[in-house]
């Protein structure tokens, strides 16, 4: 494990914890952006440059803006922050803890076969390779992803458009 990998993982975990633990929702979003950047760093270490760039452009760029919009919609002032009951926190901790326990216990002995430096193809994550796979082998899911985007578009317009006669803005 290279020191760079360890550093990126450390920052990723820390900032992910920050997303959950931060009191201020805007801080959570900023931590999330940091998490996305460290994940992009991981993609770069895996030599998947296109994914790294897309992760920054779409997630850290566009989706985060949506998050901020949602925060502004929700009117999350500290006074109006609902108090979560202790029982819910306790149950969540138990559930999350058991999931962690199971994952760690199950994955402890997993021994993936290491890569073979002589036959390993380091260029597999390049954008040209990805394009060939995406548009040849995965052509059908790619086309149908447009239906997914279209459905999302229609849905957001339907829910977000102001009807004639509605007074709110």
């Amino acid at each position, binding site marked *: 494990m290279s020191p760079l990998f360890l550093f990126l993982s450390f920052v990723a975990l820390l900032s992910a914890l920050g997303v959950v633990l931060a009191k201020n929702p805007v801080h959570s979003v900023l931590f999330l952006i940091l998490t996305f950047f460290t994940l992009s760093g991981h993609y770069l270490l895996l030599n998947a440059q296109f994914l790294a760039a897309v992760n920054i452009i779409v997630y850290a760029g566009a989706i985060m803006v949506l998050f901020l919009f949602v925060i502004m919609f929700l009117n999350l002032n500290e006074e109006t922050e609902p108090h979560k009951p202790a029982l819910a926190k306790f149950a969540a901790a138990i559930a999350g803890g058991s999931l962690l326990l*199971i*994952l760690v216990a*199950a*994955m402890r*002995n*997993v*021994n*993936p*076969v290491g890569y073979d430096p002589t036959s390993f193809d380091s260029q597999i994550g390049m954008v040209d390779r990805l394009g060939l796979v995406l548009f*040849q*082998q*995965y*052509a*059908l*899911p790619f086309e*149908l*992803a447009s*239906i*997914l985007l*279209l*459905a*999302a578009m*229609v*849905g*957001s*317009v*339907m*829910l977000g458009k102001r*009807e*004639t006669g509605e007074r709110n803005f």
Partner: protein
Amino acid sequence: MTSIILLSIFGILNLFMGFMRSNKVLLPGAMLLLLAVFGANLADWNVVHAPYFNNMLVVDNYTVAFTGIVVLTTIVLLPFSRSYVVAGETNLAEYYALLLFSLVGAVMMIGYNHLIMLFVGIEILSISMYVLAGSSKRDSRSNEAALKYFLMGAFATGILLFGIALLYGATGTFVLSDLAGAVAAPENASLQPMLYIGILMMIIGIGFKVSAAPFHFWTPDVYEGTPTFFTAFMSTVVKTAGFAAFLKLLAVALPGAQGFWLPTIQAMCALTLLLGNVGAAVQTSTKRMLAYSSVSHAGYLLIGLVASRGNLTGDAASGIFFYSLAYSIATIAAFGVLKLVADHRQRDDYAALNGLGKTNPLLAFSMTVAMLSLAGIPLTGGFFGKFFLLAAAAGQGYIGLVVFAVIMSMVGLYYYLRPLIAMYLRPAEEGATPVPVDGIQTATLALLALLSIVLGIVPGFLSGIL
């Protein structure tokens, strides 16, 4: 494949039909388009197609059969959107377009041969459902339903995706047939735990979508808040497609890991039957009762998964097909009647049905047939649905599960008879007027009742087709 292409194009067509001046043509238009899809789908029956697009999609009799159910269900559901047409709903074209798009997702979930297709299909279906759950924008219960469904559904999809990733990590393939080999004879035995966690997470993800316990907690609230027209779609099409995907995953990709998932599914099955039936028995709202009843029917369908033991053909698979069909027909009729009554009387508890036998004999009869079919009384389709599934399970030696399911359907009898008591034995409120029903709805309800009875008298023509 044809049905996916047609549904996508017709979806867009429907979307743009919304810009026409009159919305009168929308409903018959959508029904005609869906009939065309239904016909095109049936044309593929017994036709052998090579897998499409590098093993992405398989069109065989299994795909055609389940696609037939979901398309037919949507066709007979559409007449109940008449009240939207009458009220001049501005988003009607969007509703129909989203229903058609979500059918694309359903067909992908039925015909997938590659886990990416399963995932994209589930996403298309779920996104449309999240939106439609919240389509009644002025109603805070509808908003709540959409938000709950979206948050929990997005989480379940994430778990499903995590499961797919772990499965890929353990086997190195997404294609179902290759997965079967890699699961049965793993190259790297130390990856086995990763495979098991992957399978477990996929079961959780799909179990959520078909509302099997213990992942059913969203169902009553979401079904109650969602406009009834879309609740009917959710509890039939989403469940049918989900079970088709579930059976295919377990039977084609994971028969090698049967020793692992079979006990899990059995436990889920027993729990779903228990919670669904007991939950339904204590409800006071007809809609919530139907929501819990849809949970309990997920339990009966899970018996089919247990009995299938990794077979996509044979008794259990045919049983799941027949049960899904009978369940969909009865559920559409029940929700259809409930929607008509609730629209007219502005309430949806049992008392809303009081005296319906006097005021609207046809609605009451249709509801009666639906309830009897859901309860599994002989001479209705639901009886043979249960019979085939339980016979398949008994044939495999799961006697305990079968006995438990029979006991639970006794509990079911209790709550399915309550609407009947309300309709025939309780007097209507003072001055209750008959619920207005127009011609096409009358015809659809009659057709649904007829289908239920035909399936219950001569089930032979559809019972062993898979």
